[in-house]
């Protein structure tokens, strides 16, 4: 991964990671990754389970040590300066990590007291989020719905006024509506100046980040603004719509220049292996092929790649597939 042009990690960047690696037994969880996060941005790690996201977050929050490489957060080294760093970062782990037998209010009071503060002293900061769950303050945390648990966990991660927030898959398993509300909250926190590093397996959430890193099998595949990554898609990409979807997939895969064919909602995305060929030409070639295959009603149009298209193209093979 090139980090050319990104100098002086200690002053300008909220996070600067260089060559970090971590192995657990046979599994290379992180394979020498480098990236920076600017102060005040929402930086997203997009990737499936097992990509290394949690390992990276644990290293950045000083909970485990890297085998190799260096990582600085807020200018502090995550190994040498861990005690200075711990009070300045907020961390929301992936699995629900609150005390299920304590009430909403008791959980918040506990996390505040660990950092030597009180709920009352910090109320203004968490109020926009806390108000949404405050009517349930006496309810046991274990009895909250998924969306409310996430909001409580976010309040607990914020209650000591961190300068940077690490959120490990805060929206996994959360329904589509609660996910949107959660991202709205992150947008508000960012507007208040907080730096946010967040991971998610949901590709469509990339659009809510200033920059994203695509991560798979412990390696960063690409880093950029979400719109810029799609712009680098290397091959002609077409959107195909038509009836008999799964027969249509098979027909497209038989085309001699088919690189990949994937369902995307109510469309299929077809990638052609003719690098540099005009998208319109390829589209009319494919439309003619489909007509000959008996899919005269199929509509074929060139399209701009999204994050998920790019991710799959960069990943090449599914996770764990034999190389």
């Amino acid at each position, binding site marked *: 991964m090139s980090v050319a042009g990104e100098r002086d990690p200690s002053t300008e960047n909220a996070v600067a990671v260089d060559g970090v690696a971590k192995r657990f037994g046979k599994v290379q969880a992180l394979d020498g990754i480098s990236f920076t996060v600017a102060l005040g941005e929402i930086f997203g790690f997009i990737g*499936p389970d097992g990509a290394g996201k949690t390992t990276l977050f644990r290293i950045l929050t000083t909970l485990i040590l890297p085998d190799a490489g260096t990582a600085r957060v807020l200018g502090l080294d995550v190994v040498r300066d861990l005690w200075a760093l711990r009070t300045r970062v907020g961390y929301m782990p992936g699995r629900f990590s609150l005390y299920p037998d304590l009430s909403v209010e008791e959980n918040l009071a506990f996390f505040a007291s660990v950092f030597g503060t009180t709920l009352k002293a910090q109320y203004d900061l968490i109020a926009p989020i806390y108000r949404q769950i405050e009517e349930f303050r006496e309810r046991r945390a274990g009895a909250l719905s998924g969306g409310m648990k996430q909001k409580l966990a976010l309040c607990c991660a914020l209650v000591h006024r961190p300068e940077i927030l690490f959120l490990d*898959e805060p929206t996994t398993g959360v329904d589509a509506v609660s996910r949107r509300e959660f991202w709205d909250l992150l947008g508000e926190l960012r507007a208040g100046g907080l730096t946010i590093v967040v991971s998610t397996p949901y590709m469509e959430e990339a659009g809510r980040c200033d920059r994203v890193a695509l991560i798979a099998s412990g390696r960063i595949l690409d880093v950029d603004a979400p719109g810029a990554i799609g712009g680098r898609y290397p091959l002609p990409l077409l959107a195909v719509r038509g009836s008999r979807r799964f027969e249509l997939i098979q027909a497209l895969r038989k085309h001699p220049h088919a690189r990949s064919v994937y*369902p995307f*909602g109510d469309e299929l995305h077809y990638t052609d292996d003719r690098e540099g060929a005009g998208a319109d030409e390829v589209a009319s070639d494919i439309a003619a092929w489909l007509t000959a295959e008996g899919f005269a009603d199929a509509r074929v149009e060139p399209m701009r790649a999204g994050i998920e298209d790019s991710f799959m193209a960069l990943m090449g093979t599914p*996770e764990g597939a034999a190389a």
Partner: protein
Amino acid sequence: MSADAAVEAHALTRRFGAFTAVDAISFSVAQGEVFGFLGANGAGKTTAIRMLTGLLAPTSGEARVAGRDVFTQAEEVKRRIGYMSQRFSLYEDLTVRENITLYGGIYGLADRQIAERADRLLHTLGFTHAAGDLVRSLPLGWRQKLAFSVAMIHQPEIVFLDEPTGGVDPITRRQFWEMIYAAAAGGTTVFVTTHYMDEAEYCDRVSIMVAGRIAALGTPDELKRKFEAASMDEVFVRLARSNEGGGKEAAA
């Protein structure tokens, strides 16, 4: 109730104390259909699935699965259905082949049948080389494909999949859906939940639960037309937002 539906629910209801988790839902699923069962967290999906799989008795109403009453004939229903969930499906401390053998035995297959089907299943998945690996050591995407195949080992009439693709990488997620389509093409009815709204588009029909009730049911095209939405994501957001107050209280 029609005799040949794979799943048929009539005014199916479940209360927990004063809280009505599932509120008189009625619907039917045809044989060989891929039926998407959607809803926000706490909308009542899991409670409904537990009733349909014979794990939880209803407060009132009735349901038939594979032509049997799920409450008076629960054991017969269990033999005719497969079930997989994101949270638990396989034993992590057993090998791939041991898991297949275990489930084959639980579903009452003969040893010879189990051996034959295990070999075929491993071959189809391309897992033959990993037969002796502990499930714990497999990537999530492999585990989920294996869990689905194991849930199908007794050739059930209906398979219930509860968030089978959560957290799985985007390529494997699509391979998983091709397995779903292969199962449906073979005549198995697929009853599936998901939080990925693009996957809602892959279903023949979709129901959306809101606060214990089925708020919408139809093909993805029908629902998009009805709610004047460009995608199922929009349909979902509209329905769930229309119920803000009640949905929040429906915490379980």
